[in-house]
């Protein structure tokens, strides 16, 4: 297969694949939102000073750390019905939302641990150190965006599933290699700059609180 032919194919399918990557971002942002809300609640409870509540939320945090996201994805896909009825009203739970829910478990564990540290800094008046939470959170978003590719295994039409659709539609021996490489480029283009920016932000913050030796 000539390279011109390959680039033609990739170009023709770009809107379709880019639309798939938009789904990866949506799934990740929803997962981060749900996970952050729940994780923040856990962190607050751990700092609440009430022994039973603090213990319970620590236990839940430990639990979220040990649950494998990939397995949990299957768990939700198989065990939560696609549609359910509440008070006579029929609600649909699309597969992408199940993926977000599965990913949000890991997020809540992460937020619970990291926000706890940030809140402790805040209480001690160490505001700049508390700000370190922001680059950490964003770096975690990058990890979740990469993990969102696993949503393909339960049939969500994100970039990996769509790559498989393109491969089936186009055929040919080398197509697979190029389509998957092209899909990886989307992740690199999104994740690398964000990761470097957050690395830089973290360094600046650390320099401001003087934790970084000159």
């Amino acid at each position, binding site marked *: 297969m000539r390279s011109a032919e390959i680039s033609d194919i990739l170009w023709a399918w770009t809107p379709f694949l880019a639309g798939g990557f938009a789904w990866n971002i949506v799934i990740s942002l929803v997962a981060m939102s749900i996970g952050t809300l729940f994780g923040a609640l856990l962190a607050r409870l751990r700092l609440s000073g009430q022994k039973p509540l603090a213990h319970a939320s620590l236990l839940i945090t430990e639990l979220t750390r*040990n*649950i*494998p*996201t*990939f*397995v*949990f994805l*299957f*768990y939700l*896909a*198989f*065990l939560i019905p696609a549609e359910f009825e509440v008070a006579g009203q029929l609600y649909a739970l699309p*597969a992408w939302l199940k993926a977000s829910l599965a990913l949000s478990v890991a997020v809540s564990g992460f937020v619970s641990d990291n926000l706890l540290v940030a809140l402790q800094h805040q209480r001690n008046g160490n505001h700049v150190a508390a700000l370190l939470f922001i680059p950490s959170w964003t770096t975690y978003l*990058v990890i979740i965006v*990469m*993990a969102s*590719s*696993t949503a*393909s*295994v*339960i*049939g*969500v*039409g994100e970039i*990996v*599933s769509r*790559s498989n659709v393109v491969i*089936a539609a186009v*055929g040919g*021996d*080398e197509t*697979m*290699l*190029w389509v*998957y*490489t092209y*899909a*990886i480029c989307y*992740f*690199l283009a999104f*994740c*690398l700059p964000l*990761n470097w920016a957050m690395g830089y932000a973290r360094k600046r913050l650390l320099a401001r609180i003087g934790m970084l*030796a000159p």
Partner: protein
Amino acid sequence: MIGDRMRLAVGGLLALAAILCSRDALADRFDLIQKRGVLIAGVKSDYPPFGMLDANGRLVGFEPDLAAELARRLGVRLQLLAVSSTNRLQKLQDGAVDVVVATLGDTPQRRQIATLVEPSYYASGATVVTPPNKHLSSWADLRGKKVCATQGAYFNRPMAQRFLLDLQVFNGTRDTRLALRDGRCVAWLYDDTGIVGILADAELRNYETPLPSMMTSPWAIALAASERGSRLERAVSDAVADWHRRGSLIAIEQRWGVRPSQFLVDMGELWTRQQPDGSLLCGRLANGNWPPECRNKSLLSSDEVHGMQRFGLLLKEHAGLDVTIIHDAYDRGLFLNGLWISLQLMASCIVGSLAVGCLGALAAEAGFPLLNAFVRLTAALGRMTPPLLLIYLIFFGVGHIIVSRFGWTFDGVAIAVACLSTYTGCAIVSALLDASAVLKDQQPGFSLRWRTLAQALRLAYAPVVASLINVVKATGMASVIAVPELISAATAIIAEQGNSAVMMNVLMVTYFVLVLIVVQFFNLLERKILQRAQR
């Protein structure tokens, strides 16, 4: 006198009972058939090619052939009678037919009202018809895809649940066919015994049936309920067993152009399997029954079996928990094998990630600026590539090219371990290089070498262990390239048994415990290291 009258009444009743009993004895079907010299068999007339009318209006097909074979064995002539799905069991009950061979699925409900002969002679199941070149290799390829189905099929709902299909249900066969032709779905979920009829359609001639049948329901020859344990049942049962052993059913199937059934192949293997002493595994037991291994597993009950199997079936009957990995030896083997492969994956990924991480960090610090830049860039790229995509890229993309150019194939386990180890190893490289930078600040003249590696690892202990625990959790990804680990095993069992709630919980708990063990192992290691550092 009242006493006399009572005696008379009782005597009368006894006499009546005696007459009824003798009538019953006379009506022993086996004798009756021999006496009249004719076996009356009920078959279908509307289910080609299993039972249909030929141009002369005679009943012909797969099942009439079986009936003829039965009559030959009994040494009598055959008379066929058309029956329908609604009246076939009724005709048996009122004695209009001796046997029914009419696409009758074996279910516990039907066993209440008729004698269903074991072994089964055929099985129907669900499969898909797809347009040419859809490249489906397993049912998992259909997850989340639009699949057309015809309303009323017993398997629509369970198949959608087991394989997460996006079912588009249409009213009749014609509507479904049009929807498939117009590309409104990638496949048509249909009864595999009806496929021949569909593919006979000129428009769908090139269409394919790439997937094995699922949710197979065995078909049984039926006798009247009163025939349970009779000579007739034994004769029919022996005949079917003999057909499986000789491959007669496969020959008849070929004669009628039916798609080769995996069920017949499996049964042929089972019924000819020999035990170490040379006797057949599926021979009659002392009590005249077939051994449990040769019975229809879905229809066994706890009082027919022993040991683990009995415990599992009791759990199913009393608690409603269908833990098939306890009572089904095949599922148990599948699951234990999955567990073993998952353990191997986990151990290999931990070792592989550490190797990639340490070697990468050592190479970066070896003192060659170009190598350093290369390792750092590769580590950054490796950390930002989703491992799932990497597995697809290597297994399908690169693997396909290597197979077509050189003819080498790679093991799925090896590729999964390599990809996951690379991804995790890249994170470990970064952690070790960060630790090395800190050590250089603290100790002038520090450089990362084989001797000082332990020092850097101790400093980077927390991030390295976090990465290793993540890779242990991610080993399930190997399931996407058909490595038969725990997730593959669990979804395969669900596909056969439909016990998704039980299996998913078993899977979750198993994984949770495995991760917990790994976490505890690293905690223990940390304590050991600290103790040694203090000494």
